[in-house]
């Protein structure tokens, strides 16, 4: 009984962390049709921003939820103005340029922080379920992921900015004709996407040892989740993260973490073969 509760929590946690690591990429891809392969490095920089801030004496939650997203968002803004802006509409070129950026950021982080693993400890104590102890921080990640999804839904559905964003997503030319500069909207979107990546990196930082190449571990997963999700932003993210998280944890508990990862990847291949436009290309059409 206790064990099944533990497994349930771990599954929720797996889904939540997939949502977190994919959200930034999903926003940028969904709105701008730009695949940011430097997404993992944005997360890595979020982690380093958090650790640096904590070492400077900032409260750990402030560092994670405020400092890291703003820092990485600003870096994203610079990247958008200098590089991405010139490449709109050229999907493959943006992928290559952001791939270059990802290598560049790894190099910069190595020169600043070195390759020695760093990290901070989790700010939330352990938690017992019956005779089991589990990581209390899991709950924090689940809560942050839920808040993130609700926040995205509320902003997209009931604010003016969300309306403009949805309009641009569907027909950017019409939005432009109505007087909303796509350039400005894309800039804002990229800022938000980068900030979300930074947030994800920051929130996950206490769980993992951080090195400049840490981003590589996330990018593939995030990329797969977003593409498999398909065109709808929130519904796609939730459905593919839910599916992959579940598959991953079932195989992890049944066999081993490696098989869990492989099962996730195999299910992604099968899914894309059956639904080449992603889950929401077929189901939940027209949803957010």
């Amino acid at each position, binding site marked *: 009984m206790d064990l099944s509760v533990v497994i349930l929590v771990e599954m929720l946690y797996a889904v939540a962390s997939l949502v977190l690591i994919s959200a930034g990429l999903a926003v940028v891809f969904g709105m701008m049709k730009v695949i940011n392969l430097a997404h993992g490095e944005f997360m890595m920089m979020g982690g380093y921003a958090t650790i640096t801030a904590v070492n400077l004496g900032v409260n750990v939650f402030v560092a994670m939820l405020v400092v890291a997203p703003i820092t990485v968002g600003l870096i994203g803004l610079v990247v958008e103005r200098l590089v991405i802006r010139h490449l709109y509409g050229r999907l493959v070129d943006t992928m290559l340029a952001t791939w270059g950026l990802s290598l560049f950021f790894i190099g910069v982080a190595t020169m600043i922080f070195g390759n020695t693993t760093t990290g901070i400890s989790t700010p939330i104590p352990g938690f017992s379920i019956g005779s089991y102890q589990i990581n209390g921080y899991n709950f924090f990640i689940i809560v942050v992921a839920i808040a993130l999804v609700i926040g995205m839904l509320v902003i997209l559905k009931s604010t003016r900015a969300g309306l403009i964003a949805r309009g641009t997503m569907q027909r950017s030319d019409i939005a432009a004709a109505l007087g909303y500069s796509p350039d400005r909207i894309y800039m804002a979107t990229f800022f938000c996407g980068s900030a979300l990546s930074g947030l994800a990196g920051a929130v996950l930082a206490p769980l993992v040892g951080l090195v400049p190449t840490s981003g590589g571990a996330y990018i593939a997963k995030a990329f797969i989740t977003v593409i498999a999700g398909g065109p709808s932003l929130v519904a796609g993210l939730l459905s593919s993260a839910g599916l992959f998280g579940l598959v991953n944890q079932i195989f992890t508990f049944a066999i081993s973490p490696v098989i869990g990862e492989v099962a996730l990847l195999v299910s*992604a291949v099968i899914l894309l073969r059956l639904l080449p436009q992603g889950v929401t290309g077929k189901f939940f059409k027209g949803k957010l």
Partner: protein
Amino acid sequence: MQDRMGKDVLMTLVVAGLLIWLLPQLVSTYTLTVLIIYGMLGFSLGLIWGFGGILCFGQAAFFGLGAYTYAIAAINIGESTLPMIIAILVPAIAALLLGAMMFYGRLTDVYLGVITLVVTLILFKFINSTAGPQYMIGTARLGGFNGIPGFQTLNVPGDPDAYIWGDAYFYVCAVIMVLVYLLVSALLRSSFGRIAVGIRENETRMSLMGYDVAARKTILFAIGAAIAGLAGALFANWGEIVTPGLFSLGQSAEIIIWCIVGGLGTRSGPILGAAGLAYLKFALGQQSLIDNTLITGLILVLFVLFLPKGLVPAISSLWKVSFARRSPSRVHQARRIRNRGRANG
């Protein structure tokens, strides 16, 4: 048409001969060998991406598969001829299956990228977790993260004790590279090659014209994989060890960067891009002022922004521009004639 083809072959042979003669006097043959191998790897992606429009994020998978197949077969067989052949066939067959799955499923650009990326990741994760003694193929241990060392390296066919190594191995690799280059050139000149370019330009148009697009893309993909596998087998012989790093995303990234820098849609671009950047990396290992990853990344970003077509097309168009200044009308006329010749087959 026939005449130009003869000229092209002659040109290739002369240039290659000159390079094979000159370069060993500047760089050690051991380093040159690996530059040629990387050149071949870049060439394999340059073929399927530049001429077939298939952006494969996992070309390293076929490279690694070739290297591993060679190592495993060489341990089991103990003579290098058959393993070399198997090392070309296995990646080609893998690519046939994967390609058929993707192209008959009508997957394009991003989705293709994801699938190839995922397959590379699966292979990498699998090979990386085979350290245990239960993972054996014949008498070869897969070795996991540590890779497979100590297999039979290239020998004179039929004589397992006559190793080909050092300078001789360099010349073998160079000759193989030239052969592959000529074969691919012939392929591109054939109707298959020109239809492949047609598919790259407009897939719908070609399928409406009655060509089986999926089958053609699958075959082209498999040819690319076979070349990558050959490069992998040569690499295994050169390094005398194979490690899972061959399958890594970093390796795939490098191949893509080589193609971009060298120039897509040209035959020589990816080869020069690969050899040039690999030499740069080797040379940079002797300094520690600036992180090498940073430089690689910067090069890629700058190329995408300012020279998206790559070095070789940029240089040749520069050449054409200065050439055209003297007699613009004649060049245009020549190009028109050439195009017409091409359209007529």
